[in-house]
C-alpha cells in the first residue's frame, strides 16, 4: 500500500475517470438535475443584489480576520472549551487524528460509533481505520448512509449521494435492509432509513460529528443540519467526539450570524436549516441527558502549508457550502468521484494540493476553464481562479528551485521541453529582430506544419500560420502598425 492507504482511488487517474464520467449518461443526468436545482434555489435566496454583496464582504472580512489571528484564536478556543469541560486534542495529520479517536473509544470500552456528517472524518478515512481496529462505524446522515451501504464515497460535500437517483437507492435498500420491498417512493425510503438507523443511535457508545464553526470567545461548537441525525449523534451516546479542520474557528459568537446566513443560503438555498446545534459543554450536573464526555480534535493535515503563503491562505476562508461546485461547468459534467479526492470541485482543486501534495493532486488545478463562476458565487470571496493559476505555476516550477514557501510536490508537472518552448517564445517576443525572423520563417515554412498537434487536433483542425503576417498586410496598406 502507498503512504496514503486512506485514499480510495489514486488521484493520478483523474483524466481517465473524467472520461469515464463524461460517457456515463445516467451520472450526467443526475448531476445536471442536481446542479440546476441547487443553482435555482441559491438564486432565489439572494434576490437582493446589494444585500448579497454586502453580506459577502462581511463574511469575507470575518474569515480573513479569524485567519489573521488563527494561532491566538485556537489557543483561546482551547482554553474556553477546556473551561467548559470539553477536551481538546491536536492532530498534525490523518494518522494522529485517527489514533486519537481510537484511543478515546478504547478508554471508554466502546465498540460502536454513530456518525453525523463530517467531511474531516472522510478526509482522514476514519471509518476505514476504525473498521481495521474492530470498531463498528455507522453513517447516519441519509446521504452518507446511502453511500456507505453502496461501499462508495460522497460525491458532494453537502449532498453526499447526489450521484444516485431514487431507483438506485430503492435497489440498495431492498438488497441491504431486511424486510424492505422495492419502492421509489422517497417518503417511504426515508422512513426505511430512519427505522434502520434508530437502533444505532440508541446503542452507539460514541457519537462523532464535524463542526461548522467553532467560537473562540465562548468555547462553542456550532453544527448545522436538517435531519436531526447530527443532534442525535451528539446527544444520545455517552461520548461525543467532534473533529474539525483547524481553520474553522472564528473570534466572536456574533461573527457566526452572517456566516450561517451565507452558508445555508449558498449551500442548499435555505434561509436557515432545520437545526442549529450549539454545543458548549458535556452534560452538566443536574442535566438529564447529553454526553458525559465531549472531545474536539483539531486537524492540520496540510492546512498549515496553505496558511504559510499569503495568497494561498485565502483557501482557508472556505466555509464548505459547496456553491463553487454547484456552479462549476467541470464538476457539473464529471461529478464528484472523478476527482478522486475528499473535496471535489473548485474548492477541492485548491485545497487538495495542500492535503495530498501536488504530486498526488497536480492534475486538479489544470481541470478548469478559469471561467470564474466559482469565485462569483463564493460567499467569502475566495479568488479561486487566481489560486488555480498559482497552483499551476507551482506544479510547473522546477522541482529544484528554492522558493520562500515551497509546496509539497513542487514541480510535479514540470517539463523541461515545455520550459524550452516558453523560453523560445518569450525570447522571440523580447527582441524585434528575433520576432521578425520568426515571422519570416513561419509564413514561408507553413507547409511543414504537422497535421497532428497533440491534444489540439483531437477535436479541432490543425493550426497553421497564415501566408502573410498581419504586420506585412498593414505595411502594404500603409497603416501604422
Amino acid at each position: 500500500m502507498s503512504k496514503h492507504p486512506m485514499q480510495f482511488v489514486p488521484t493520478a487517474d483523474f483524466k481517465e475517470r473524467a472520461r469515464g464520467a463524461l460517457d456515463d449518461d445516467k451520472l450526467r443526468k443526475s448531476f445536471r438535475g442536481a446542479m440546476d436545482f441547487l443553482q435555482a434555489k441559491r438564486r432565489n435566496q439572494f434576490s437582493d443584489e446589494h444585500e448579497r454583496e454586502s453580506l459577502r464582504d462581511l463574511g469575507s472580512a470575518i474569515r480573513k480576520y479569524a485567519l489573521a489571528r488563527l494561532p491566538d484564536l485556537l489557543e483561546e478556543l482551547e482554553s474556553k472549551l477546556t473551561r467548559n469541560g470539553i477536551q481538546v486534542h491536536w492532530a498534525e495529520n490523518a494518522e494522529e487524528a485517527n489514533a486519537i479517536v481510537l484511543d478515546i473509544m478504547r478508554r471508554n470500552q466502546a465498540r460502536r460509533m454513530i456518525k453525523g456528517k463530517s467531511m474531516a472524518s472522510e478526509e482522514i478515512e476514519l471509518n476505514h481505520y476504525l473498521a481495521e481496529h474492530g470498531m463498528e462505524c455507522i453513517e447516519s446522515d441519509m446521504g452518507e448512509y446511502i453511500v456507505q451501504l453502496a461501499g462508495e464515497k460522497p460525491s458532494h460535500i453537502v449532498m453526499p449521494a447526489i450521484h444516485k437517483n431514487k431507483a438506485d437507492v430503492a435497489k440498495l435498500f431492498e438488497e441491504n435492509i431486511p424486510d424492505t420491498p422495492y419502492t421509489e417512493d422517497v417518503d417511504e425510503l426515508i422512513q426505511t432509513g430512519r427505522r434502520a438507523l434508530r437502533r444505532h443511535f440508541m446503542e452507539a457508545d460514541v457519537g462523532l460529528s464535524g463542526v461548522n464553526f467553532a467560537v473562540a470567545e465562548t468555547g462553542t461548537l456550532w453544527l448545522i443540519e436538517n435531519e436531526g441525525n447530527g443532534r442525535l449523534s451528539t446527544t444520545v451516546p455517552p461520548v461525543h467526539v467532534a473533529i474539525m479542520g483547524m481553520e474553522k474557528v472564528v473570534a466572536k459568537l456574533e461573527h457566526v450570524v452572517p456566516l450561517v446566513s451565507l452558508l445555508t443560503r449558498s449551500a442548499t438555498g435555505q434561509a436557515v436549516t432545520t437545526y442549529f446545534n450549539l454545543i458548549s459543554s458535556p452534560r452538566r450536573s443536574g442535566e438529564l441527558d447529553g454526553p458525559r464526555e465531549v472531545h474536539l480534535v483539531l486537524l492540520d493535515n496540510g492546512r498549515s502549508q496553505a496558511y504559510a503563503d499569503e495568497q494561498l491562505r485565502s483557501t482557508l476562508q472556505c466555509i464548505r457550502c459547496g456553491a463553487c461546485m454547484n456552479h462549476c461547468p467541470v464538476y457539473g459534467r464529471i461529478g464528484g468521484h472523478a476527482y478522486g479526492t475528499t473535496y471535489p470541485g473548485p474548492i477541492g482543486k485548491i485545497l487538495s494540493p495542500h492535503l495530498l501534495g501536488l504530486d498526488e493532486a497536480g492534475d486538479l488545478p489544470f481541470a478548469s476553464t478559469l471561467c470564474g463562476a466559482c469565485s462569483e458565487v463564493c460567499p467569502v470571496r475566495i479568488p479561486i481562479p487566481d489560486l488555480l493559476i498559482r497552483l499551476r505555476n507551482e506544479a510547473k516550477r522546477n522541482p529544484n528551485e528554492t522558493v520562500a514557501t515551497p509546496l509539497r510536490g513542487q514541480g510535479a508537472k514540470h517539463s523541461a521541453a515545455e520550459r524550452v518552448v516558453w523560453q523560445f517564445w518569450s525570447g522571440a517576443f523580447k527582441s524585434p529582430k528575433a520576432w521578425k525572423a520568426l515571422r519570416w520563417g513561419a509564413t514561408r515554412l507553413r507547409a511543414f506544419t504537422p497535421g497532428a498537434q497533440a491534444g489540439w487536433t483531437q477535436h479541432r483542425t490543425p493550426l497553421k500560420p497564415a501566408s502573410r503576417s498581419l504586420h506585412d498586410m498593414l505595411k502594404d496598406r500603409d497603416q501604422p502598425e
Partner: protein
Amino acid sequence: MSARASMLSKLRACAPATAPDMPDVAGYYAGRPASTQAERVERLRAELTASHADVHVVSHAGWAGAVAQLLHAQGVRRLVRQSGAPGDSLARALPPALQASEFGRPLDEWKAELFEQVDAGFTVADCAIAATGTLVHLCGPHMPRTLSLVPPLHVVLIDAERIYATLFEAADGERWAARMPSNLVMLSGPSKTADIQQTLAYGAHGPARLCVFIACEQGEAA
C-alpha cells in the same frame, strides 16, 4: 515536540504581524427598521408554516386547552413534558386517558422507552426568531436536549413577547455570548432531508411533525 506545539509554532511562524480591524457585525445589522410584535408574530407564523410546521396563535388563557385538543386529535397516548409551570398547566388540561409525565430521570435509565413508546414531547421555547421561523431552546436541567428531538411529534409553546426579529437581535438581546447553556438549539421546522434525488421528505431522524402555539393577547381562546 507535541502536535499542539508543532501546529501552533508553524502557524505563529507565518501569521501576519497585525490583524485587520475586527469586523463590525453590529454595525452591519444596525439601523434596520423596528418591527411591532404583531408583525413578528405574523412573520414567525408565516415562516414556520412555510417550513411545514402547524402554527396556532392562541390566547394566554386558552393555549393549554388548544394543545390538549391537538394532542387528542393526533391520537397521542403518551406525552413527555418539560418540567415547570406551563407543563403543569398543560397536564391539568389533558384528558385522563392521555399519559403525561415529566422527563424526570436521566436518559440512560429509560432510553429505549423514550425512543419507542413516547408519542410526543412538549417544550416551551426560550425565544424565537421571526425572520427565519426559528424556535430557540436553551437546554439545561429543566430542558432536556432529547425532548425536542426524539418523540415523533414535537409541540412547542412560545410567548409572543419573546419573539425577536432576527438572529442577530436574539443573540444580542439575550446576551448569549455571556451565558451560553451547555446546548443551545435553534429549530426551524420538522426534521427533513432532500438527500434522495433532491426530493424533500419530512421526519428524517427528528420529529416528523412540529406544532407551534404562539401565545399572545390577541390570540384566539380555545
